[in-house]
Every structure is written in C-alpha cells, then in structure tokens.
C-alpha cells in the first residue's frame, strides 16, 4: 500500500517558484498497479520520484504499508522500493548477474542466497540463466535489458515498485510483449506499483487505477473504465481522446455482454426448420448450426433456406468467426468488421457454443455510461464521482 498525503514539490527557478506537485493526496491499495498519467511537465514523474526521494519533497508525507517513511534513512527506504527507469540504467561495468544481485548485496544477503535469487529472477523474466548471467548489458537487446532492469528492481522482493515510463524506450512490438509478461508476473507477485506513463493505451492496459495529472495537480483518480466512461472535465476528456469509447473495448470482456440465448440448428434439421427458427428468433440473415458436441459447425443463410429444400448438413457455409468468453470486445469488434457480421457466436474454453454477441449489445453497453452521464449534466455536482 502506498499513501501520499499532501505531497508537494516547489522548485525554485530563476523565473520564480514553480509548483511541480501540489498537495497530492492518493492511495494505492496493496497489490494494485496505479498509473500516473498526464502530458509532460504535469508533475507525474516528480510525484513518483518523491516517493523514493530522488526528488526531495517540499512538504507532505509518504506512507508505505501504513508506515510513515519520513523518519526512514534514505538508503534503507530506497533499498526496499523497486525502481525501474525508462533509460533502464543497467551498470555497463557489471555482468547481468552483478546487476541483478546488487540490491541483495547492498542488503547484506549471503552469496549463495543472492546467486540463487539471480537464477530465480532470470526464470521469472524468461531468460536462460546460463546464457545470460555472465554477459554484459551491452550485449543484450533493449527489450532484454529492460527485463533485466525489472529483475534488478524485484531482486530483493520489495513490497512496492516505482516505474518511470519503464517500457517507453522499447519498440511497440516488444513493448506489448513485455507489458503482457509484466502483467502475468504481477498476478503472482502482487506488488503495489506506481507507474508513470504518458500513453493512454498503456495506462488502460496496465492500470488497476489511473491518476491523471495536470499542472502539478491530481485531476482524476479512478479505474480505467470509469476514467473513460466518465472523464471529470474537459481536460481529461481531451487527453483521453475522441476515440475514448473505443478504448473501452479493451476493458470489457465478451462474457460481460454475451447473451446466452442463441437459436441453433443441427445438421439433421431440414432447411425448413432452419427458416422457421430464423424467423422465430428474429434473425436477419442466418442461423448457427452446431454439431453433436455443441460446437459451431456452420451457418445456414436465410436466403438459402428459403429457396432450397433439403437438410442443413448439405447446405451450410463455414462459420466466419467465433469469440471466446475471455476475449475483449476489441477483438470481437475487429472480427465483426473483418467478416462484415453483426453478431458472432461465443464459445467457452471447451469450444462449446454458449451464446452470442451482437453489435447492438456492444454499442449499448459502451454507450450506457455516457448516456447516464449526459443525463447528469444538468446537475453538475453529481457528475463528479469516481
């Protein structure tokens, strides 16, 4: 748990005092990732760096797991906080092993323990210990280096981590991979993490909560879904972008809006039955055919069923696409667009049909929050809620 209380930083510049962070109050619950988001110069990095005193706070307090850190010795404080920076900052004069074990060494672990820990960390970041431990940072790619950077920060198993645009310098493809890996690690590690980003998509993907900063002030602090659905003011709205409704596609899983009512036919049904079912369910153009294990087997189109006689097994077309219950709406939407469909069958882990997802259901779900908010606009005080 990280709690900031009235944390403030004032820089004295030749042009006068500049308030970089203005009475920041916030709390990150244990095991959550909090993204500090905002344009450059908004105070997000300053806020992060005040937690491990890379930037000395002008006033205010930082609590870690309920303990006021003000009285702690700076070095002790830092050794108990994992720190990852955008420039990675691996020490070029040290091997990968020496880089990873540096904090355990500073903490006085014995040799056998920190050596074992280095191998453990390598396994965690999916790099082969024997191939990498004795190498130097300059021999690794940027993505590999930042994995080591993360391993170094985690080596002493600190309860909290600070990450300053950790994946900002990595190319987009590797960035997505390393983000996924990191999220997977976090599921096991359950660290409390503060993470600076200026990338809204990264924030939505990585964050359990997002804190939006502007000119040294914390403007909005909420879950990604709330942030996108109910931006607090015009600044947040413009920062999130016009397409913010689309960004929410990432956050909603198919299982949240799937309807389990789906009409199906079996291969042994006649086309006549199929046409009757299409009309019964009010489908516009087709119905799904399933096999005996309830898996999607084909599509019977309405026009075909009307003009032809025979059995479904002889007159079906291939199923254009199916979605999994755990897929996000972004994938569902993409498949619908790609195959020119207004609905898709949904399957569970076993591949059994368990419902359908329609374009209508998606737009209605995404729009619900916006419509609710517009209704609130007449009473502005109610619009501001987390």
């Amino acid at each position, binding site marked *: 748990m990280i709690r900031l209380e009235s944390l403030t930083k004032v820089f004295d510049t030749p042009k006068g005092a500049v308030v970089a962070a203005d009475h920041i109050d916030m709390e990150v619950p244990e095991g959550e990732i909090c993204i500090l988001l905002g344009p450059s110069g908004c105070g997000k990095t300053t806020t992060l760096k005040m937690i491990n005193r890379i930037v000395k706070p002008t006033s205010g307090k930082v609590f870690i797991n309920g303990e006021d850190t003000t009285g702690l010795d*700076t*070095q002790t404080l830092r050794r108990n906080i994992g*720190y990852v*920076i955008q420039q990675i900052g691996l*020490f*070029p*004069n040290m091997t990968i092993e020496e880089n990873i074990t540096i904090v355990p060494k500073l903490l006085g672990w014995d040799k056998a323990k920190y050596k074992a820990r280095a191998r453990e960390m390598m396994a965690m970041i999916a790099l082969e210990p024997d191939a990498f431990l004795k190498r130097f*940072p300059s021999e690794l790619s940027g993505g590999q280096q930042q994995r080591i950077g993360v391993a170094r920060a985690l080596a002493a198993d600190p309860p909290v981590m600070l990450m300053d645009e950790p994946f900002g310098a990595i190319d987009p493809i590797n960035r997505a991979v390393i983000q996924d890996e990191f999220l997977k690690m976090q599921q096991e590690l359950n660290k409390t993490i503060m993470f600076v980003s200026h990338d809204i998509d990264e924030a939505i993907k990585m964050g359990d909560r997002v804190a939006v900063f502007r000119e040294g002030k914390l403007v909005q602090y909420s879950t990604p879904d709330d942030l996108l659905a109910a931006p607090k003011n015009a600044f947040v709205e413009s920062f999130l972008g016009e397409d913010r409704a689309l960004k929410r596609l990432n956050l909603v899983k198919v299982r949240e809006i799937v309807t389990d009512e789906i009409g199906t036919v079996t291969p042994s049904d006649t086309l006549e039955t199929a046409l009757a079912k299409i009309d019964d369910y009010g489908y516009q153009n087709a119905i799904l055919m399933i096999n005996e294990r309830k898996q999607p087997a084909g599509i019977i189109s309405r026009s075909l069923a009307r003009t032809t006689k025979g059995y479904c097994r002889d007159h079906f077309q291939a199923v254009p696409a199916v979605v999994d219950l755990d897929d996000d709406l972004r994938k569902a939407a993409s498949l619908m667009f790609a195959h020119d469909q207004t609905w898709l069958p949904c399957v569970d882990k076993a591949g059994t049909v368990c419902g359908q997802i329609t374009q209508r259901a998606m737009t209605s779900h995404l729009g619900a929050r916006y419509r609710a908010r517009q209704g609130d606009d007449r009473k502005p005080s109610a619009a501001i809620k987390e």
Partner: protein
Amino acid sequence: MELLQYALDNASLLLSRTIEHIALVGVAVGIATLTGVPIGIAITKNERVAQNVLYLASIIVTIPSIALFGIMIPVLSLIGHGIGYVPAVIAVLLYSQLPIIRNTYTAINNVNPALREAARGIGMSPNQRLRLVEIPLAVPIIMAGVRTAVVLNIGVMAIAAYIGAGGLGTFISRGISQSDSRQLIVGAIAVSLLAIIVDYALLYLQKRLTPKGMSRQAATP
C-alpha cells in the same frame, strides 16, 4: 652509422639513464595520480571550486619548465634540495595535475545521468556509487589523462638534466655544452622513443583496466 656506434659504445650508460628517466617520471606521475584523482573526484561536488582548481592547474602548465626550476632552487635550498631529484619530481608532479585532474573531473561528471539515478534509486550510498559505478566507468578516461601526463613529462624531465636530476636529458645537455651532435641526437631520439613506447604500454594497461562490459566504448583520445 656514427650515431649507432656511439649508442652501442655507451649502451650501458644509455640504459641506466633511461631507467633513471623512467623512475623520475614514474615516481612523479605516480604521486600526481594519487593526488590528482582524489582532487578530480572531490571537485565534482562543487562547480565553482572545480573551475578555480582547473584554472590554477592550467596556469601551472603554462609556466616554462626552466622558469619553474629557477623558482624552486631558492625555495628548496632552504631544505637543502635546491637542485637534483626533488625539484625535478615536484615540477613533473605539478605539470601532471592538469591532465589528471581534468580527465578525472570530466569522466566522473560525464557518467550517464541515468546510471547515476539508477544507482541512487536502488539505494547506494554516495561512496558506494563512486566505488561501484562512477570510478569503474571513469577509469578509461582517467587513464587517458595519466598517459597524457606521462608523455608530456618525459619531455619535461629531459630539461631537468640542467638542474642535475639525471635521466636522458644529460645526453642532450652535454651534447649542447660540448658541441657534440652525436650525444645530442642520441639523447633526443632516446627521449622520443621512450615517450612512444611508454604511451603504448600505458594504452595496453588502460585497456586492461577498462571494465569488460564497456570495452567497446573505451576512450582512446
């Protein structure tokens, strides 16, 4: 041929003078390294002090060696060492300060700020940062400064023969006073060769001392 003959005839003298020369420069630059590196590190803490120290060291280098010897004669005479070994070593020690202090200062100051921040962020004390990160990274550039000092001062030490310090300069000073071009030329060539050989030897040492992981970016000015 005549020169070669002379050199061969005086091979043992040439050798002992060379050793004497190396010893003089070695002791002086050795002491200069022991003083210059800590000074160079210390002045990174304060920009203004740094500028003044570097300015002072630059002024010292502009004093002609003959003049410096001249100044030292009355001063060091008070402790009975007006000429000879002591003033020669002191002069070289003073001349060595600029390249060593300046390179140390530059190297430490130019350590990548990201590494500095990473070192602070993971909880190294200022001393640990120096010992584990900043000095190892600065070694190639500091060594380049030491090399500059050595090569520069092999030349300066030749002049110290005039105040009786010995070394290869004695061939040159005798060659001039006795109008003996053989001695003069042999002495001059020996000094030049010594400078070149020592420079390469130190370059090798510099590469050996450069941390392995950064040998690709080793400084070789």
